[in-house]
């Protein structure tokens, strides 16, 4: 990560307490550098998904603010990928990716180019007329990514998107994500509880404590080219080890 990168957005002292009294987030301040992949890493229930929802506007912070450098995001500025593919089961691949455009009242013709580009990007040419239940879990997730990217968002929010997939599919989609991110040059905020996935994907990792979630460390990762070989290097293992240690320390009472 180059030190010159500006933050796309900053969260300032965000806390979130749910109506039942559970405190999910405690004073989270974080810079999200533009054009990079930032990962929120933490144990289950540490509020990392809540933070993502607050950034997206789906949830509100109890206290604290989110500052966007280029002004508040409009419809389509934020792409969101959920843990499940979250597709309309009755609609085919093309129509699923068309959904954000349809909501913005963009005609099918006007949206077609962006949709075809997104389908190319995730390597799903020829599957436009397939329904979700005719696709594998990995392919469904790629449709979901295509839908999130089709509106050309400035930031892509991903909430444990590959958690439900098998290891091989997950590796493949990790590489796909890196390639796609280079191609469209957008900012990514990625939530995961997998140390290995975080180290492999990220330019920056924000390590979070168990509930209530706090940022206990921010670590920049610079391992060079990500290829399958990288996972076998000692540098990779060392980074994973350091991050694991931070997580364990955060877990200590």
């Amino acid at each position: 990560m180059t030190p010159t990168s500006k933050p796309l957005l900053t969260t300032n002292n965000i806390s979130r307490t749910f109506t039942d009294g559970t405190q999910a987030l405690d004073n989270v301040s974080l810079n999200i550098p533009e054009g990079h992949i930032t990962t929120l890493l933490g144990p289950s229930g540490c509020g990392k998904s809540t933070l993502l929802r607050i950034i997206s506007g789906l949830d509100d912070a109890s206290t604290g603010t989110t500052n966007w450098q280029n002004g508040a995001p409009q419809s389509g500025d934020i792409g969101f990928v959920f843990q499940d593919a979250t597709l309309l089961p009755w609609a085919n691949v093309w129509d699923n990716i068309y959904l954000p455009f349809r909501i913005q009242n963009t005609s099918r013709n006007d949206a077609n180019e962006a949709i075809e580009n997104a389908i190319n990007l995730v390597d799903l040419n020829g599957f436009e007329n397939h329904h979700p239940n005719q696709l594998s879990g990995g392919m469904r997730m790629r449709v979901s990514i295509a839908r999130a990217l089709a509106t050309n968002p400035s930031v892509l929010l991903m909430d444990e998107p590959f958690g439900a997939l098998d290891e091989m599919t997950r590796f493949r989609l990790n590489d796909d994500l890196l390639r796609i991110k280079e191609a469209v040059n957008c900012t990514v905020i990625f939530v995961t509880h997998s140390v290995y996935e975080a180290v492999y994907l990220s330019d920056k990792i924000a390590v979070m404590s168990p509930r209530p979630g706090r940022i206990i460390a921010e670590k920049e990762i610079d391992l060079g080219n990500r290829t399958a070989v990288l996972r076998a290097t000692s540098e990779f293992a060392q980074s994973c080890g350091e991050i694991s240690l931070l997580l364990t320390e955060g877990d200590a009472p």
Partner: protein
Amino acid sequence: MRMRLKDPLPPTLIGIAVLIGWEVAVRLFEVPHYVLPGPFLIAQALWQNASLLFGSLWITLEITLVALIAAALGGAALAFVMSRARWLERSLLPYAIVAQVTPIVAIAPLIIIWVDSAFAALVLCAWIVAFFPVLANTMTGLKSADPNLRDLFRLYGASRWQTQSWLETPTALPYFFAGLRISGGLALIGAVVAEFVAGTGGTATGLAFRILEAGYRLQIPKLFAALFLLSLTGILIYTILSILSSWALRRWIGAAD
């Protein structure tokens, strides 16, 4: 979703075996005709009274179908109205439940007195019995949209109308059809019960009236013939609704291209 019988052979064989056993038993034990007629005698009665019985079948079928269509439209419309606001659901649903739990036999005489047209009165009775499964199922369906998909619609700034027509309604459609299949059987039951209550009102000439009439005159084979037609009608309605449902939901199953 598909409830059609894939292989009709086993039930057909069972049916034939039962009919043969029935005929044999009736002859062997010399059961009187007015207690239990054999299948041959019933078929004969059906043949001899064909024009009368099929005329009555048509009347019952008309009542059933009008009530079923009204139940589908009315049940779905009510579900939509109630899903618009919590207070609407809370103020209307209790009355729908009252209509559902009150035995139709008990209110049918009142309806027949109040409503001038006998046809309208019978349709109303059948509708009261039939609309609730559509209403309850559609309401459940309208609330069953995937929360993540709801969030997605919200993220892109979808209006209430967009969310309702592109997310909630398609989600509710399989639930609606499941309710409709139950309502199909209930509409027939409602029509028959109402005809029974209306009885010898003079105007009622549906199948239920034929059953009553044949019972009074101890024409038991004719009674069985009418009964047979009723069962057949019920099966037919269920089958047609199942085919309609599979056709309407083909996109949910994933059309093969």
